[in-house]
């Protein structure tokens, strides 16, 4: 047995039942199971178990977000130096982005896990791993310039109101990370939208080159322009949108990085490919419909461009697929995903006050997912009843 195991065994007794520190058992267990997969064995009639557990599942999702995170770190630095008119090197951009984003991640995890531990302690449960994912999702849907205290407040809101009041991970109705973002979006609109928040330094304004605009493509589209330009006035191509060298929330800009994560999630079988696929399908269909009836420039944006813009891809891959808040039946997942994509583009284009239609569409469908499941399950029940009647005759 390793020295570490001996050490854990040595400090364990006070936490066990009857020990002085028993009230901190959840916390102790969280750290112990972080280090070691427990020695618990099966007791019922089923004697073997899949090696996959909640920790593994969650860490796989976090790994899938890494490409988007790394790109976001670089992109933050890239846009900052572009706005400042400084010709910076690659590592300089990465370092700048890292200094901006790392504190957001730390705040998100520390605040969120702190609350999770406290609730687990109160309830006498083991600490659930759900926040491993939420804690990374929250930073990725924030603008890089978001004040840290706002991240903290949003995280508290998301974990307490979005999750714990319903009974913790697995019981929540809304996706916690989106709850955090929606909270900030409505509570502090000036820090969460507009032309300046996406690129660090613009709000402050010192050193920014004259006439530089940090507006996002969706922000420009809402003004009904036909061509989209970056801060320097150069036209964006679809390739820029796909690659992600556009302003936006930290993790949402690079469609290619998000797709890498999506491939990983689908390969491992952790995320539902049905949801991801149907969100994109729903978005494309709505885009085409809008193209057909286009009366302004925004409606005429090529359907497939919509899939590259804003938080669409990020929402489809990482938010809509949250199994707890999504539809739980396989048939329901098709409907759920399709309606998210469909509504996201609808809200985005027809209600320019909310260019971030994806967030609202997912939250709305989170609320409707149980209803979709209800009808799918009812259909199953009806099939069974019908069968009984047929045989009775």
């Amino acid at each position, binding site marked *: 047995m*390793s020295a*570490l*195991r001996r050490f854990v065994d040595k400090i364990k007794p006070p936490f066990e039942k009857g020990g002085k520190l028993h009230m901190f058992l959840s916390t102790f267990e969280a750290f112990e*199971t972080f*280090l*070691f*997969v*427990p*020695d*618990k*064995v*099966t*007791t*019922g*009639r*089923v*004697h*073997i*178990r*899949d*090696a*996959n*557990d*909640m*920790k*593994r*599942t969650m*860490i*796989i999702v976090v790994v899938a977000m890494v490409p988007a995170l790394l790109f976001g770190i670089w992109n933050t630095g890239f846009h900052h130096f572009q706005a400042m008119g400084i010709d910076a090197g690659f590592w300089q951009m990465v370092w700048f982005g890292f200094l901006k984003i790392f504190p957001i991640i730390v705040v998100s995890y520390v605040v969120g896990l702190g609350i999770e531990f406290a609730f687990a302690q109160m309830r006498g449960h*083991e600490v*659930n791993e*759900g926040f491993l994912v939420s804690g990374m999702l929250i930073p990725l849907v924030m603008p890089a310039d978001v004040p840290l205290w706002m991240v903290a407040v949003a995280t508290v809101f998301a974990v307490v109101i979005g999750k714990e009041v319903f*009974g*913790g*991970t*697995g*019981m929540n109705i809304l996706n916690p990370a989106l709850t955090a973002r929606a909270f900030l979006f409505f509570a502090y609109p000036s820090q969460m939208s507009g032309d300046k928040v996406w690129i660090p330094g613009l709000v402050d304004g010192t050193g920014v080159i004259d006439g530089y605009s940090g507006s996002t493509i969706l922000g420009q589209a809402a003004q009904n322009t036909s061509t989209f330009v970056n801060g320097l006035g150069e036209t964006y191509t679809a390739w820029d949108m796909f690659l992600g060298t556009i302003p936006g929330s930290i993790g949402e800009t690079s469609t290619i990085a998000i797709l890498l994560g999506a491939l990983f999630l689908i*390969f*491992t*079988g*952790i995320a*539902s490919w049905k949801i991801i696929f149907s969100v994109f399908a729903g978005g494309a269909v709505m885009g085409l419909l809008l193209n057909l009836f286009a009366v302004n420039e925004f409606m005429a944006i090529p359907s497939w461009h919509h899939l590259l813009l804003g938080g669409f891809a990020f929402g489809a891959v990482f938010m809509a697929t949250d*199994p*707890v808040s*999504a*539809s*739980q*039946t*396989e048939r329901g997942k098709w409907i759920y995903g399709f309606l998210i994509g469909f509504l996201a583009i609808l809200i985005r284009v027809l209600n320019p006050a909310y260019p971030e239609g994806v967030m609202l569409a997912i939250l709305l469908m989170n609320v409707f997912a149980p209803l979709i*499941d209800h009808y799918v*399950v009812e259909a*199953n*029940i009806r*099939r*069974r*009843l019908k*069968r*009984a009647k047929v*045989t*009775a005759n």
Partner: protein
Amino acid sequence: MADVIKIKKGLDIKMNGQAEKIYVKSPRSKTYAIKPVDWHGLTPKIIPKLCDPVKVGTPIFYDKYHPEIMFTSPVSGILLSINRGDRRRIVEVVIEDDGKDTRETFLQGDPADLSREQIVENLLESGLWPMIRRRPYTVIARPGDQPKSIFISAFDTAPLAPDYDFLLKDIDEDFQWGVNVLKRLTEGKVHLNLDGRYPSVRTLSSIKGVEINRFKGPHPAGNVGIQIHNLDPINKGEVVWTVQPQDVLAIGRLFKTGQYDPSVVVALTGSRVEKPIYLKTIRGTSVAPLLENRIMEGENRVISGNVLNGRQIDAAEGYVGFSDSQVTVIPEGNYFELFGWMLPGFKKFSTSRSFASALLMPNRHFDMDTNYHGGERAFVMTGEYEKVLPMDIYPMHLLKAIMVNDIDKMEQLGIYEVDEEDLALCEVVCTSKIPVTKILRDGLRSLRKEMEE
């Protein structure tokens, strides 16, 4: 040849320790036991006194709520002990073997010439009636019921399962007799379900008087529950009986010879068995002589049955279950694994492809142990159960209905159609480590209480 029914969903768990097709006669055990716990919801009443002599086929206990259902001794000797478990529940009724095999005699004759009452009476008296199980609930059949059909699954797709084609070779006459008996018990069909993956074995496909169906697909295609669901699903109020292949043989031999033949073949399997083979033995044998010199040193778990639906038994003092055709020995998993959930996992079995083993050797066989691989959590992942359950049922919704004890919902969601073995794979693959089969059994128990008591 009838159409093959294709089962698409499911999972074949590839484990090491498949039994080689060799028969070995196992040495006789000193003691044999019938375990009331092998039947759900059975309360035994002991008949003989301790040290009373018994013969092969002498009743040793009966069902308190159905006194006509007898359980008889598989060997001759004396009633040695009655072992009790938690809350003084009887777990084993032990017979000491005298090696003489003196036998009780029962009615002998062609079932075609006997009345249904005579057949039922003969099965009850000989102690073979408990081989007939009833769906829903998977409990002993009630002699008064008229089942709408009887199902025999003549193949097993569970991990390391015995090959019934091998096991039933050359005994088609006894099997035919058994089928003839069962035919008299129902006005519906007797379904004999064969493995569609291989050209069917000569003996079984020539059985007459049955509806032969072929199934093809991964486990649980061989489970009788899946087959019933496909051919003749159980609606509320309906009853289907099921019998296992070796039990059909015993029933056939009873009518052919007028004697209870307790001999069975048990496949000794699993990664901790030195040389997995088939053992000829007697029902209720102590497991020790089967394992002697055949298993590896170390902490082992001995299972009567397979890893998906088996009972843990003690390697020294345990007894093989009444209708089990398999004993599995795998390593215990009581170890801590440093950062096990983060490491690549080259040797780990998982249906998710989140471990390196999925990339490197997708077809490898695993030395699976009994570790939980994580802690129990609330339901989070969805769609996992549906992938391994080839039934038109929503297992997670059903489990939730059971957890809140909503009888109406359980019925609506199809609880009558499932048994623990059908949902066993759901428990294996569950990321949240939910005790699926235990919840299901609780549900079946409370439902039966509501409906029948």
